[in-house]
Every structure is written in structure tokens, then in C-alpha cells.
């Protein structure tokens, strides 16, 4: 994984999200999105450390995770637009993007839910003799969900090869982490005997390095690792906020947060020429992807409940 590759990933996520916000505004995407802008280094660094047989779970703010894992951007755009060619055939939308062929066991819209699913998947893969490591993303808000704390316990007890990636962006919607998390985030993981580290979540290289050692621990049977990646959400909690004008962050705070931009931090490691090349490449990719998505078919309402059951049932 070169500096250029990491840059390509953060740039791709950034530009994907900016275009997705435009599609929300233009009405192509219903329901809005939770933009990942500002947090790109975490997805890029974590996924760069994973191998092809590894798995991830993602969150409501999940476009970055699945893009970094390698999904086809056209199929992600199509999913956000509710099209049949979407990753989930338009049945999941922004908060549920999944691609099992890439080990993406789904983005989960219930805060704190996916950690225990990832733990089970990693345990089961190991039991079947596979070398799989799971990385599970969640926010600082999830640190107060009992279900996730229970998962820490199971993972530590059973030495499950899972990496808990906490994206601490300082807020759960409008709730500051200082008002929500007693004690420290990493101390919670450490209390279960899980090595917990705080890393700079704005720098893809640092995230990559920390994740590499976590993957190494997991693969060598040493069990889970907890990575608290400190970061800042540059944009809205959700695009509804573009209209809602919430006042939980000061403009000074937001501009200070934005001053450490992962795209700039990684971009500065490239020559101007290389950077321009990557930018052009990403734009061309996203132009094509958006075009494909916009041109793809809407699902047939008669099939609204297709896939509800593995074995088709008679439904009344």
C-alpha cells in the first residue's frame, strides 16, 4: 500500500460524499445520508491493512468503509438512489450497504449492533479453519451501548480475531463525547483485557500502521484489539442538518476541526503531478459511476418483499 494508494482512497471517499450530498440536494437520493467527510483516513487506513478473506461491518456513516474495502462506486451510488443495480438491489440504501463478495457484512443502522455480529463472524470463520480477521467500525456514541460492551467481553474471553475501530469524532449527533462517556474510551476496552490504543484518525498512514499490528495480533491468535481513532466530522451529522441549523458546535470549533484534513495530510505526501493525476482519475471514475447509477432501473414494486426469506414463503 503506497502513499498514493491511500491518497486515492481518501480522495475517492471525499469526492464520492460530496457528489452524494449533491444528489441528496437534487432529489436523486431519498432520505439523505450521514456524510463521512473528515473521517476518510480511518476507513482508508483500516481497510488497507486487511486481506481479501477478511470481513468488515460498517455503520450508518458507512460509505467510506465500503469504498475503502473496494466496492464499485457505481453500485454504491445506485444503492443510495434505490436502484436495482445497487449493491443491495436498492433494498438497503445508505445505511445498509453490503457486499458479501468483498467480506462486507453490511452497514448497520443500529448504533452498537455490529460489533457483536463481527465478533460472531470472526469466531465462526476461525472455527471453520479460515484465517479471517474482522474489523468493526463504530462511533463514540456506540461506546455507551451495552450490547457493544458485551461484545468486548465475548471477544476477549474467546480470543476472537476482531479489531474494534472506534471513530471518535467527538459527537453522537449533538451529544459531545465528554458529556456522554464517563472515564476514557480506551480504558473501557482495557478493562476487558483488550489492548486499547488512541491514534490520530486524521492520518491514514498512522491508522494503517496501528491496524497492521492489530491484524498481526489477531492472526497470530492473540485476540481482539481496540483502536480509538480521534477524528472530526467536517459536515452534518446527517444531511437533514443542512436545513435544520443546529447550534451544537461553534464555527470556531468546526474550522479548527477542519484544519486537519486527511485529504490534505495524505495529499502532501505526493508530488503535485501525482496528486493531480489521482484527482483526475477519481473524477473520471466517479463521473462514470454516477452516470451508470443514474441510468439504471428502478426496482419493480411487485418485488418489494423479494429476499425477505431465504426460502420463498407464501405471503398474504
Amino acid at each position, binding site marked *: 500500500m503506497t502513499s498514493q494508494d491511500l491518497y486515492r482512497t481518501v480522495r475517492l471517499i471525499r469526492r464520492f460524499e460530496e457528489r452524494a450530498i449533491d444528489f441528496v440536494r437534487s432529489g436523486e437520493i431519498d432520505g439523505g445520508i450521514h456524510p463521512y467527510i473528515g473521517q476518510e483516513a480511518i476507513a482508508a487506513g483500516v481497510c488497507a491493512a486487511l486481506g481479501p478473506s477478511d*470481513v468488515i461491518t460498517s455503520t450508518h456513516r458507512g460509505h467510506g468503509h465500503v469504498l475503502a474495502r473496494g466496492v464499485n462506486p457505481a453500485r454504491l451510488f445506485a444503492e443510495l438512489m434505490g436502484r436495482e443495480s*445497487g*449493491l*443491495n*438491489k*436498492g*433494498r*438497503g440504501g445508505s445505511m*445498509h450497504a*453490503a*457486499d*458479501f463478495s468483498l467480506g462486507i*457484512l*453490511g452497514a*448497520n443502522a*443500529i448504533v452498537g*449492533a455490529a460489533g*457483536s*455480529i*463481527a*465478533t*460472531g*463472524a*470472526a*469466531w*465462526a*470463520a476461525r*472455527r*471453520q479453519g479460515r484465517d*479471517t480477521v474482522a474489523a468493526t467500525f463504530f462511533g463514540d456514541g456506540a461506546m455507551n451501548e*451495552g*450490547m*457493544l460492551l*458485551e*461484545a468486548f*467481553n*465475548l471477544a476477549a*474471553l474467546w480470543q476472537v480475531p476482531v479489531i474494534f475501530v472506534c471513530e471518535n469524532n467527538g459527537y453522537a449527533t449533538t451529544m459531545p463525547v465528554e458529556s456522554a462517556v464517563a472515564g476514557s474510551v480506551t480504558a473501557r476496552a482495557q478493562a476487558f483485557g483488550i489492548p486499547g490504543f488512541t491514534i490520530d484518525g486524521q492520518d491514514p498512514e498512522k491508522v494503517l500502521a496501528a491496524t497492521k499490528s492489530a491484524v498481526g495480533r489477531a492472526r497470530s491468535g492473540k485476540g481482539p484489539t481496540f483502536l480509538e481513532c480521534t477524528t472530526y466530522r467536517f459536515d452534518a451529522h446527517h444531511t437533514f442538518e443542512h436545513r435544520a441549523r443546529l447550534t451544537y458546535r461553534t464555527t470556531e470549533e468546526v474550522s479548527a476541526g477542519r484544519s486537519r484534513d486527511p485529504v490534505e495530510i495524505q495529499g502532501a505526501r505526493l508530488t503535485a503531478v501525482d496528486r493531480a493525476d489521482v484527482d483526475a482519475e477519481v473524477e473520471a471514475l466517479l463521473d462514470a459511476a454516477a452516470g451508470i447509477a443514474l441510468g439504471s432501473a428502478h426496482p419493480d414494486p411487485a418485488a418489494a*418483499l*423479494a*429476499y*425477505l*426469506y*431465504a*426460502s420463498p*414463503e*407464501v*405471503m*398474504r
Partner: protein
Amino acid sequence: MKLSYLKALNRALGDELAVDPSVFLLGEDIRAAASNVTAGLYERFGSDRVLDTPLSEQAFTNFATGAALAGLRPVIEFQIPSLLFLVFEQIVNQAHKFSLMTGGQCKVPVTYVVPGSGSRTGWAGQHSDHPYSLFAHVGVKTVVPATPSDAYGLLVSAIRDDDPVVVFAPSGALGVRDDVDFSTLAPVPLGVGRIARAGTDVTVVALGHLVHDALAAADELSSLGISIEVFDPRTVYPLDVDGLAESVAKTRRLVVIDDSNRTSGFAAEVLAVAAERFDLDAPPRRVTRPDGAVLPFALALDRAVQPGRDQLVTAIHAVLEER
């Protein structure tokens, strides 16, 4: 040979563990087999197949979903029926929704077994629930076997099914024993009811332990010349509407006995189906727990809140009298 309901569940688990290496069990105190359902299985299959969990229902229920996504077939035993309220999120909002939300990319073949559902007499408000109607309402496949053979057959089918399935084993049925030729034990398909007793005057729909009450009531009424057909749907969801229709076409009278609360319960659904589809000679009746029931501790109070045989007999007389 005599087979008890409890032993039938145990046998189904043992057989499935033996034939399918992807099956594993998890739950609280299942190695020591506190509920007896998993007796001998840890000794036979070892720690990888029989997993004792900490008291972390929410995490281990999702853990099972993750294991299913990774290719295994987990079976969870829940110690108390009311624990299902803790994991409604994990079953309904996670396991059940994965297939549709991912556009059919995955399957979640998890089985949730609740041995000792409903009143256990003497266990009071937080141990006596029977929430099968809730799972039917949200569309999770749900079975409530009445007999040892069905307990065996439905549990096997639940484990082999590629979707989440909840198996309620009513505490009132756990002690039932049947003369069974073990070589005839076989999977029972989900969604197919059975006629537990053939009759011509009234169809009584009953599930689980209440099938045995219905059969006893039918015996009692036969001495009065009343012929009761007992229809046991076995699966709450999906409901065998065709099987029920066939029975009601014959009797044209319908009573449902159901260990759910009245509003939006299983009996309410059967009556709604009857209103939409059946041609009846008398308005149908239902015998249920009262609305919003919490089972009180004292034995007489516990009994007073559960649907009983006397109420069933009264309801049967009522549909026979009305026209």
C-alpha cells in the same frame, strides 16, 4: 418406546450436531444442561459445538447472527421466555432483516429455542411470558410444537431452515410423553398443521400445551355427542391457512384457544382469517390470556389468567348454540 418432549428436543439437537458440522449450540448453562435440553451434548460434541455464554443475551444473539453470516448454523437456547424481550432487537431488527436489506446476499440460519415457554407455575411475572404472537407479527418463522414427535421434527426443520426460526417449547408440554417408534422420527415441515383429532361439529385451533387441553375437552364433549376437530397449526408463522380452511369447511364452526394476550394475538389473527375467508354458521370465539396480562404469582391467580379448559368448553357450547 416412550419419548418425552424434553428428550425429543435433546435428540433433535444431538442428531443435527451429528449430521451437520456447521451446527453449534450456545446459551447459558447449556454444558451443565440446567434445562436438561442439552443433556449429554457437551460430553459428546465438545466445547466448540456446545458453547456456554456469559449472561450477555444481546451480544450472543448477534454473535449467532455473525456466525450464521460466516457459514455456521447456530442454535441458541434461552433460559427464560421473557429473555426474548431483551433480544427482540437482535432477532427482529438484525437477523430477520438481513436477507431483505442486503438484497438477498446472505442467509441467517439461526434457531432460537425456548424450553419452558409460558407459565411455569410459580415463576411469576418475568418468567411466564409466551410471546410467539409477537414473532409471528414481525414475520419471523415461529413454531410451537405440541407433541414429542413434533418437537423433534419441528426443531430439526428449524435448524435446517435457512431463515431465523423461533421454537417455543411450552413448559406445559415438556412433560408430555408419547409412544414413539424412534425410527419414524422425521423432520416436520414448517407451515404445515395437523389434525390432532378428527371431528365434524366444531374446529378447535390450539397450539403447544393447549392442544392437550383441547383434546381433553374433546373427549369430555364426545360423551355429550359433540364431535370436535382439533387443528394444531404447529407453526404460528407462516400459518397453514389451507389446512385450517379444510377443517373449517367441514365443521363450519371455529374456536381458538391461544396462550397470548387478546389484542393482536395469534387467536385474533385466526379470527381475522376466518372473517375474510371462511363461511361459518356461528360467530367464531377465542379463549386467550386477558389483554395486557402479567402473570401474577399466586397459583390461583396464575391459572385465572391463562386460557383454560373450562373456558374452552364454554366457548364450544356457545358456537354450537349460536347461528
